[in-house]
């Protein structure tokens, strides 16, 4: 494995964390949006509000991590992606601003219903347009250079739109599975059933979209399609098996295992894509080895990543330990937050 491959792996680790934690977060926003009128959706939203708050900032950092590693390690790819895909990336950023603002002011907003709508709608915007970006890259529509690709058709095509829809569905699915456990922890059996149904529904939708995606990729993203059906195939199989296992466990009302398996299903897809696309950053335009920064920069990135693991992980552990031991709570009846349970 070359230094460039190692940095690409680090980039992918960041992307995986963002897909899982960011995805679950965006999905929760989606469920908040579709929960219905202020009365009907109140209980579901109360649960969502409870699980969302404390982890938002950490999830946010993964995106910045991905951006910085991409522009430092693979500058040319970064410039090409961001100039050709100016429109969907601007819209994804818009979603992040709206969501962040909604988060910062959620407790003080005077028109809470409006703030919630905005929060929910922005939770759709970011994953959808991030999905179109991934679809555009996978289908080879991002040529190297400053805005060399088509500003509109690069992301407004079947492969990109399907990927966008798939991202939204995956987020909603992941989040629904998480919320089932959260509802159990909050001793709210009605919400447990509520999100179980939704987990099933989104699992079905995600499956259908994934199959449709594969059909479209056969014609539009041949390189990645070939990869997914050869080297990437084990990952695809693992993902499907995990997805099915989650459904079985949910149907049997199992108390354990659903969340790790749902996460594994998503992780497998992310890495399946990576393996399928390897050795390209931009299939079939730019290879990892050709697009990588000079070695001292790559080594610098790996050192920084190592330092991050050494410094940040213990700090996160401290945060979660304090949270679990109720050392950083304000009230007398603390409840752990979901990443604090350590099985996500």
């Amino acid at each position, binding site marked *: 494995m070359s230094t460039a491959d190692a940095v690409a792996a680090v980039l992918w680790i960041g992307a995986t964390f963002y897909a899982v934690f960011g995805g679950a977060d965006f999905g929760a926003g989606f469920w908040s949006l579709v929960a219905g009128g202020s009365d009907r959706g109140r209980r579901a939203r109360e649960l969502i509000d409870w699980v969302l708050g404390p982890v938002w900032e950490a999830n946010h950092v993964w995106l910045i991590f991905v951006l910085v590693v991409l522009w430092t390690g693979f500058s040319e790819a970064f*410039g090409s992606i961001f100039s050709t895909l*100016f429109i969907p990336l601007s819209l994804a950023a818009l979603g992040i601003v709206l969501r962040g603002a909604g988060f910062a002011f959620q*407790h003080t907003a005077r028109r809470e219903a409006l703030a919630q709508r905005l929060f929910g709608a922005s939770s759709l915007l970011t994953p959808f347009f991030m999905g179109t970006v991934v679809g555009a890259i996978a289908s080879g529509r991002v040529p190297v250079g400053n805005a060399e690709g088509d500003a509109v058709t690069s992301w407004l095509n079947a492969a990109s739109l399907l990927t966008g829809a798939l991202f939204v569905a995956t987020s909603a699915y992941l989040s629904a599975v998480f919320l089932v456990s959260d509802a159990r922890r*909050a001793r709210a059996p009605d919400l447990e059933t509520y999100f179980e149904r939704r987990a099933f529904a989104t699992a079905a939708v995600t499956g259908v979209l994934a199959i449709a995606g594969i059909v479209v990729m056969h014609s539009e993203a041949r390189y990645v399609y070939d990869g997914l059906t050869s080297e990437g195939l084990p990952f695809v199989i693992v993902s499907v098996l995990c997805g099915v296992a989650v459904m079985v466990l949910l149907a049997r009302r199992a108390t354990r295992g659903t969340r790790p398996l749902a996460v594994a299903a998503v992780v497998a897809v992310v890495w399946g894509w990576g393996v399928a696309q390897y050795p390209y950053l931009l299939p079939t335009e730019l290879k990892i080895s050709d697009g990588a*920064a000079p070695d001292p*920069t790559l080594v610098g990135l790996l050192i920084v990543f190592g330092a991050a693991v050494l410094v940040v992980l213990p700090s996160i552990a401290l*945060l979660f330990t304090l949270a679990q031991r109720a050392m950083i709570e304000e*009230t007398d009846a603390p409840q752990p937050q979901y990443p604090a349970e350590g099985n996500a």
Partner: protein
Amino acid sequence: MLDVALPLASNLEAARSQMAFTLGFHIILASLGVAFPAMMLIANWIGLKRDDPDALLLARRWSKVVAVTFAVGAVTGTVLSFEFGLLWPAFTGRYGQVFGVLFAIEGIFFFLEAIFVAIYIFGWKRLSPWAHFWSGVPIAITGIGGAFSVVAANSWMNQPQGYTISNGKVTDVDPFKVIFNPAVPYEVPHMILAAYIVTGFLVASVYAVGMLRGRRDRYHRLGMLIPLTLACIVTPIQFAVGDTAARSIADHQPVKFAAMECVQKTDTHVTEYIYGRCTDDGVKGGIGIPGFDSFLVGWSTDTKVTGLDSVPPDDRPPANTMLHWAFDTMVGICTALIALGLWLGIQWWRKRDFPQTPWFLRAVAVSGVAAIVALEAGWIVTEVGRQPWVVYEEMRTADAVTKADGIWVTFTLVLLLYAVLGAATILTLRLMSRRWRGVEVEDDTDVPYGPSAGPELSEATP
């Protein structure tokens, strides 16, 4: 104004306007993020050492303000990282591999900051008082570390080094030389001190307004004096650092310095102009001090100062008068703030109290806004003064900009969104302050990292 309005037709001007606006917005929040935790910890420390409930209450409330500004700053900071690609893909596409490691380092600091902000804010009740205090210390340290990383990247854009380019491709990088480039020793401390000055005077000004409105209790007194003292100590140091910076720029980036001072022709015995309009035949209006510009650069009126005529017109910074005014405004405000500090210092030395005249409180009340104006003016000097280069004498800003259409649309959207974001931030802080005035017992419903007290689930409706 005409020279500002005309070039607005191009992609470049749209991108520059959007970058300038979003950075100018973020720099205020970033300054608060760097320096406010330190003030909060000083109040916390005083509260614990002297068993002072007023200081502890201040620290506790300031920690909530830190939470709000940190959350908003995280959003505006994320926008900036998108803009590296959305607006300047050719710049990041070539040089990202050179300066990017600095942002990777900044990422670690930001991550740690977020974690310890959360621990500190929610640690007030259950952590032991001193353990809680120490959990806040990493916030102040990581704030400085993050500022170092980001400003070092900007310094590198002014004094690029540590890389090799052949055929337009970066072929080698020396990260150490990139990180410790020649502009770091003056640019980094200048920005970190600016953060402390802005935060100090801004926080003090809030309590000065409260005192002017008759709330002259001990709580307000401390709330004003802690940040004000810190800011007044830092401001003269900043003046010295800024003076060194200006002299270094005269050496490192003589054209930038010439634009700041409106020096048209390379000469000795150059007149220092305070304000005035910059034209091709020299400064019109303004107050001139003969020979003083030469003296400031080299301690002698015989010092030769490089003029704008040393480079072709295309290589000179635009909007000369604006740049010159920004520089003079920054220096002027810094001088006025030093005078404010002297007023406080002398009175304290003689009477062990701050000046009791309402004029002192009025001066403190405007000092916060003045410090922000100085911060923005300084940022304009750095950024506009570097033009037409994005990487000084290596890459033109015009060659860095995206070829994608639609920046006018995103810029308009950014203006609208940030207006709402700014208004919401100020409204939220005002709302918090109004609540605090009304209640004795703290409630914690107004922080973004809301206490995870368990969902307040209403009764299930069948």
